[in-house]
């Protein structure tokens, strides 16, 4: 009945007799958000003969790219340059960025955004019809393209609708991938549950690209959608690919209390002020510049997100924040911008504030507090999205290339998923063209996984609710891996999470139905999240320095001698982990002090 199912049916109808034919594709994408869809189109355009599977646990246009608001950075103005975008990105990332990757990124970002324009993305315009750009945090020039303040929504729908043109893109909508299948040192497929029927299938592929986005849901207070459970990171990690720089978690400085709904940085880029309980623009006390009536690049409210979120914590300590039932807040003041500007440039901000906070930013202050927003780390890849595990690629937030280093700049993630989604797609297409069919061993692994999913999850009584274990994970992560961290609390978190990983195996699954069983999926997601959480606290414990979004009160200084290096965490066969360090690639910008507000 469904499109995705119908499309994959012909593959099964080829079967004659009793043996069903295993669905098979050249390249399989886990995840159908911005990175996945961009990769799918790149594969189709690289080699139109290849069959492409987009396996997504939600319909692709529901993917979390949809929630991105403020914009997408790429050099377009005459007064700007690729080197300036590169420098902003590298200094913004506190020199933990790989500079060769950043150079490729800034070089290719403009053509990727232009391509989206040619595909119909409704970018906001100048009066003469050219692309409009706005300032953004940590950026020295105006280079952030935007579609009002629903940029991610428009990009995702443009990509999704454009992808419908390509007949070789087979969608498995609402299929949940539980395992990557590896044999002979290369990834050869996945096992996935079709949520609607409950059927568990092995789908083989000559290459797999993980583009499942981030993992904000390991924390209790996040802008991330409920689907952001680090699925792809955990899948890759379990299959043998290392995760990189997992200790770097971005807190966005302006989320609505209670819901965690994001109020875009564009609100500050268009001229909004952050004020404490006294109406004072407190960022001036934190080495971020002096307050001016109009926004100034790389200064005050246009400082980088890590520094702004850290300043909030200091304001709390000074008792200068406002207490609410949902914790301390500061205020975002947009009143001086006026209704016309707010309606034309940031209408979604007003819509969200009215709906969820019962506040009209035209006349009232918006209460905000820092909220977990983005994962700088992810599956370790090279500049073409290839992981060290043959046949496995990753792109978007799920991957770490790395262009974001210790702190991502706002509006770099949307062009990142285009640039590296396309690169991963092209590389995977080329690799897949030279591979043979999946091995028998892989099919046997698929059968084993099928019985695990049925036996472990549908035929047992557990001891406690999924939510009980999840709540404890949330509490542990907030206490240990927040904006400021200590070795002591991280050490305790390592132990607590070890216990939770045992407990998740014993959670109750009341739902024994195969049809759209969201409880089984929630248990699997929780298990993924606990692996990711474990990687976060372990790498955070070992990084005995403060850099970007990783601030250790017991090691308050950056330590380039020891830690100008990426952490790589590997999972060992016994389930424990091992961390090693990989040097950062420096091309033209030697490590220096990060200076804002000059």
């Amino acid at each position, binding site marked *: 009945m469904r499109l995705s199912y119908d499309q994959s049916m012909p593959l099964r109808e080829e079967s004659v007799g009793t043996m069903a034919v295993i669905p098979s594709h050249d390249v399989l994408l886990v995840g159908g958000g911005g990175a996945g869809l961009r990769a799918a189109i790149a594969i189709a355009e690289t080699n139109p003969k290849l069959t492409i599977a987009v396996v997504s646990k939600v319909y692709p246009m529901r993917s979390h790219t949809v929630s991105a608001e403020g914009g997408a950075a790429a050099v377009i103005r005459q007064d700007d340059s690729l080197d300036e975008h590169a420098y902003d990105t590298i200094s913004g990332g506190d020199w933990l960025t790989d500079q060769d990757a950043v150079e490729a990124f800034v070089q290719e970002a403009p053509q990727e955004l*232009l391509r989206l324009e040619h595909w119909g993305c409704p970018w906001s315009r100048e009066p003469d019809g050219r692309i409009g750009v706005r300032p953004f945090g940590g950026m020295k020039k105006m280079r952030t393209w935007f579609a009002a303040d629903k940029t991610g929504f428009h990009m995702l729908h443009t990509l999704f609708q454009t992808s419908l043109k390509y007949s070789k893109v087979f969608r498995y909508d609402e299929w949940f991938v539980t395992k990557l299948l590896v044999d002979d040192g290369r990834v050869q497929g996945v096992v996935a549950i079709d949520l609607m029927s409950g059927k568990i299938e092995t789908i083989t592929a000559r290459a797999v690209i993980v583009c499942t986005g981030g993992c904000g849901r390991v924390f209790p207070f996040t802008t991330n959608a409920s689907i952001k459970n680090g699925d792809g990171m955990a899948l890759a990690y379990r299959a043998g690919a290392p995760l990189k720089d997992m200790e770097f978690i971005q807190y966005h400085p302006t989320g609505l209390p209670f819901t965690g709904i994001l109020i875009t940085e564009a609100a500050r880029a268009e001229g909004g002020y952050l004020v404490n309980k006294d109406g004072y623009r407190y960022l001036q006390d934190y080495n971020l510049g002096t307050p001016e009536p109009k926004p100034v690049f790389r200064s005050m409210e246009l400082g980088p997100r890590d520094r702004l979120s850290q300043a909030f914590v200091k304001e709390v300590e000074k008792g200068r924040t406002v207490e609410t039932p949902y914790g301390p807040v500061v205020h975002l003041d947009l009143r001086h911008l006026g209704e016309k500007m707010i309606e034309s440039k940031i209408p979604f901000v007003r819509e969200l504030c009215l709906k969820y906070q019962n506040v009209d930013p035209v006349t009232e202050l918006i209460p905000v507090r820092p909220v977990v927003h983005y994962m700088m780390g992810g599956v370790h890849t090279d500049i073409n999205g290839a992981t060290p595990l043959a046949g496995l690629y990753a792109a978007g937030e799920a991957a770490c290339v790395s262009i974001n280093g210790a702190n991502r700049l706002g509006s770099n993630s949307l062009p990142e998923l285009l640039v590296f989604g396309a690169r991963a797609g092209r590389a995977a297409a080329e690799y897949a063209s030279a591979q043979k069919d999946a091995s028998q061993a892989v099919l046997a692994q698929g059968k084993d996984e099928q019985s695990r999913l049925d036996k472990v999850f549908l035929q047992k009584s557990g001891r406690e609710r*999924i939510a009980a274990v999840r709540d404890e994970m949330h509490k542990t992560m907030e206490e240990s891996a927040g904006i400021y961290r200590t070795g002591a609390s991280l050490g305790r978190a390592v132990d607590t999470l070890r216990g939770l990983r045992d407990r998740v195996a014993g959670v109750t699954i009341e*739902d024994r139905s195969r*049809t759209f069983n*969201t409880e089984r999926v929630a248990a699997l997601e929780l298990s993924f999240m606990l692996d990711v959480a474990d990687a976060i606290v372990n790498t955070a414990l070992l990084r005995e320095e403060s850099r970007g979004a990783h601030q250790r009160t017991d090691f308050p200084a950056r330590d380039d001698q020891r830690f100008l290096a990426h952490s790589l965490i590997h999972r060992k066969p016994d389930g424990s982990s091992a961390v090693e360090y990989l040097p950062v690639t420096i091309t033209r910008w030697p490590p220096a002090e990060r200076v804002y507000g000059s």
Partner: protein
Amino acid sequence: MADRITLQVARYRPEENAEGPTFQEYEVPCPKDWVVLDGLNYVKDQLDGTLSYRWSCRMGICGSCGMTVNGEPKLTCATFLADYAPGPVRVEPLRNFPVVRDLVSEIGDFMRKLATVKPWIIRDTDKPLSEGEYRQTPAQLENYKQFSMCINCMLCYAACPVYGLDPKFIGPAAIALAQRYNLDSRDEGAGERLEILSQHEGIWGCTFVGECTKVCPKNVDPAGAIQRYKLHAAVETMKTFFMPRGAR
């Protein structure tokens, strides 16, 4: 205000409920900032893990959590429990779609229809990237912008009496999205879309009840798109009688 409220939730598991859905009551907290979806999540986490429904962004943009709330199609992440005090609040799956399970409906019909209207930019010749962007003035953007705001939440299909009677009707969101491209200054595909949209089940199926526009959470106005397109299609269809394709 009462601090708790009763949800009456439609339950349906095809393996067990051959005769159709049943209703199950749950009492949930009702603080002023809780939406219906928060109530469902409370049920799922604390009371009954077997309840199934879709949700994701909880900020009214992903389009996952459309359901029928006290008889009306709503995004449950944008519908506040307190507005229904003292209750009860009846939560059912969206109407006009097959029900898969509990509050989950099957929207494959829309997904197929969306692809048929060719919701992508169609041009006779593509401009090379090296020549930069297509110029599009703010006024030209404004011309289609509203129709580009559709989040595919399916509330309009659930509200549409024509779609309820005739499942072949291509439906409000798919037509609005076709119009979104037809009205885009970069697009030249209106002629190709005309063939699909001017079929019986296309725009002519709409009797202009306007329910789609009333329930749209994003102010897309599909009814307006359909009316506007009917006029356009009538003129274009007339033209085909008098002029060869090249002259249109």
